[in-house]
């Protein structure tokens, strides 16, 4: 790492606004015409956040109220959990890039809570990670946060509280919802219908994994808070173009999605437009990953958009897609090959950058017993006994994730995103993300430019891994202004 402060080299940072414009332009061109924006819809009855403010005097755009609820995943499957505004997922929060927003958060629980604005490049006090220094919301308390949303795209908000051995807390609960940031330049909307899809797993329990350590499994799963067959179908029309905005809000599980007879044109990942809008048969989303994909409805019938893996689908991970005028038993996925390669969405001729410094990050685990969760380490140390990684504003850093464990890790960097530079040793570029799955025994290299001063948390987004030490803090070097 270089000891001096340098200004960011010109050309080293992708202009996300320009990229987004390109993404929308490309999408429009692909459509052949710029179509009017279609109706927004949740699969179920999920209103946009619009609760009146409870704060005295302060103007709020949105209020999130954290409380314990009973939720019906299916007529014979009710769960008790915690959620935002009494619904799962939480209310859709729609904001505009660069337009300041005030959000009041009311904590009706008897314990501290915190809300993280995942994917947003915002200051530490509002990011929602106590490890960075964001304040907790006390039990029974409330807070008002204000920030200017950026970047645009599909993001989300969720609890950042630890769960440890309590499988009712953290992301095992229903505390998650979508934050959609519209581009400041407006959304041309080259689609007929926008459909938000939120995946989650429920009723977690510990079980033995093949590698001899404990892991978390689930009894059931849901799409937009309902098990397959128990929510309203997504109704589409033949020839329509549906923009699926998909979030995997599972605490620990990666999920695959397929829609038989249809293909997904991937436009963006983690809210950032991809360099190549490749068309694929299946989508893979690690915990916290998001995919924006366009599907042309050209195969009339009744289908299941869901997990190609039968066990997960049987557990509820799917939703029915129903063409207008069609009925009958939904046809399920299952024959699709589970193939995913981030690089197909990258530049065919990726730009070559020279990083100012390379930071190796080795992921390992320490066995704690067949009846315990492994302890996780980055560079041999487990949170909170880790050393902060010092970065300098404006510099480009190449983080080399070296996963020497037997688990895949969806690693996430707060308050920044990064560009994939290599996956499993193969070069790529043009794919910007804030979560990337580093598969067991492989390496992934990413470039991040230090453009958002303040402590920045890095962690595995698997709740059990995060709880067991898989975290580190990036700290911006202090600048001596004298």
């Amino acid at each position, binding site marked *: 790492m270089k000891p001096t402060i340098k200004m960011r080299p010109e050309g080293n940072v992708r202009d996300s606004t320009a990229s987004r414009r390109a993404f929308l332009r490309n999408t429009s061109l692909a459509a052949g015409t710029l179509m009017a924006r279609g109706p927004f819809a949740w699969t179920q009855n999920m209103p946009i956040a619009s609760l009146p403010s409870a704060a005295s005097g302060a103007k709020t755009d949105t209020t999130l109220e954290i409380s314990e609820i009973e939720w019906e995943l299916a007529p014979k499957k009710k769960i008790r959990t915690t959620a935002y505004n009494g619904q799962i997922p939480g209310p859709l929060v729609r904001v505009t890039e660069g337009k300041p927003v005030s959000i009041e958060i009311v904590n009706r629980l008897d314990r501290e809570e915190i809300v993280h604005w995942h994917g947003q490049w915002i200051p530490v006090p509002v990011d929602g990670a106590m490890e960075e220094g964001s304040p907790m919301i006390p039990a029974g308390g409330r807070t008002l946060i204000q920030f200017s949303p950026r970047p645009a795209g599909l993001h989300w908000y969720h609890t950042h509280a630890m769960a440890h051995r309590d499988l009712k807390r953290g992301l095992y609960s229903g505390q998650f919802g979508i934050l959609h940031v519209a581009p400041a330049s407006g959304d041309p909307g080259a689609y007929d219908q926008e459909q938000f899809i939120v995946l989650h797993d429920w*009723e977690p*329990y510990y*079980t*033995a994994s*093949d*590698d*001899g*350590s404990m892991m978390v*499994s689930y*009894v059931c799963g849901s799409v937009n808070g309902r098990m397959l067959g128990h929510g309203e179908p997504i109704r589409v029309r033949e020839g329509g173009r549906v923009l699926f905005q998909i979030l995997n809000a599972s605490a620990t599980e990666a999920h695959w999605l397929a829609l038989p007879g249809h293909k997904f044109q991937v436009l963006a990942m983690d809210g950032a437009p991809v360099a190549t809008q490749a068309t694929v048969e299946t989508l893979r989303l690690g915990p916290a990953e998001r995919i924006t994909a366009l599907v042309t409805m050209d195969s009339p019938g009744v289908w299941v958009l869901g997990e190609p*893996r039968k*066990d997960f689908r049987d557990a509820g991970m799917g939703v029915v897609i129903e063409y207008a005028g069609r009925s009958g038993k939904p046809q399920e996925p299952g024959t699709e090959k*589970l193939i995913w390669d981030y690089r197909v969405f990258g530049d065919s001729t990726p730009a070559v950058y020279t990083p100012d410094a390379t930071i190796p990050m080795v992921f390992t685990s320490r*066995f*704690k*017993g*067949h*009846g*315990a969760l492994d302890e996780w380490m980055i560079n041999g140390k487990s949170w909170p006994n880790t050393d902060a990684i010092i970065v300098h504003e404006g510099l480009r850093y190449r983080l080399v994730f070296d996963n020497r464990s037997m688990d895949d890790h969806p690693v996430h960097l707060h308050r920044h995103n990064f560009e994939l530079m290599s996956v499993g040793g193969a070069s790529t570029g043009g794919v910007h993300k804030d979560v990337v799955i580093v598969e067991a025994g492989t390496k992934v290299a990413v470039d991040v430019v230090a453009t958002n001063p303040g402590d920045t948390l890095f962690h595995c987004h698997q709740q059990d891994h995060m709880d067991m030490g898989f975290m580190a803090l990036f700290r911006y070097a202090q600048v001596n202004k004298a």
Partner: protein
Amino acid sequence: MVCTVCAVAAHAQGNYEIQVYGADTVAPRSTMVELHSNFTAEGHPALDGVAATNHAEHETVEITQGINDWSEVGFYIFTSEQSGLGAQWVGDHIRPRVRAPEKWRWPVGVSLSTEVGYQRALFSPDTWTWEIRPIIDKTTGRWYFAVNPALERTWHGPDVNQGIGFSPAVKISYDFTKQITGGLEYYADYGSITNIASLHNQQQQFFPAIDLNVSPKWEINFGVGVGPTSATDHWIVKGIVGRHFDWGKQKQ
């Protein structure tokens, strides 16, 4: 215990399968094949037409097929080899088993096994026996506990009138490393539940044992047992080698 072919008569101990059961069942679409090799270094001589256990080598093949995520069926082939008798087929058992599925999220593992089978009179005067075995286990941190309070019934043989016998087995172990687990196994046969045998006539065995967790495909267990009562074989060396075979698409 597992002396699955043993009748409760004091000198009819089997030592064909010496294993404390855990609550897990074999996964669906997979098969577990185990070889149990037990050598009685100091046992009992031949008596009343029943073959000796002393210096007998017992080899048992156990094949268990997973049915679904809460049941399995096991099948046993018992054999014995010893001086004067050579290699002999002893008998066969079948053992269906059900468990509380993990998704019930019970705080302990719970399973119920029942076992029915035949063994030749040369090796056990009770030729048809039945066993029901509740299984409770718990893994916490590095510790593992399992209890098998088994009940046995003879259907054909001299112990038919004995009624139900009580044959508990217990295991406690500790994970020294991810690969090596060491512990103590206890097997007993107290005789009839309505007429507990005297300590002299009870079977009591203690096995310090090691489990090697070298691969999810393999199960390896090794132990040396001591039997302090006169009704028990005094020294036994046991080993279990098991291999999982997967058939078809597994849950991912």
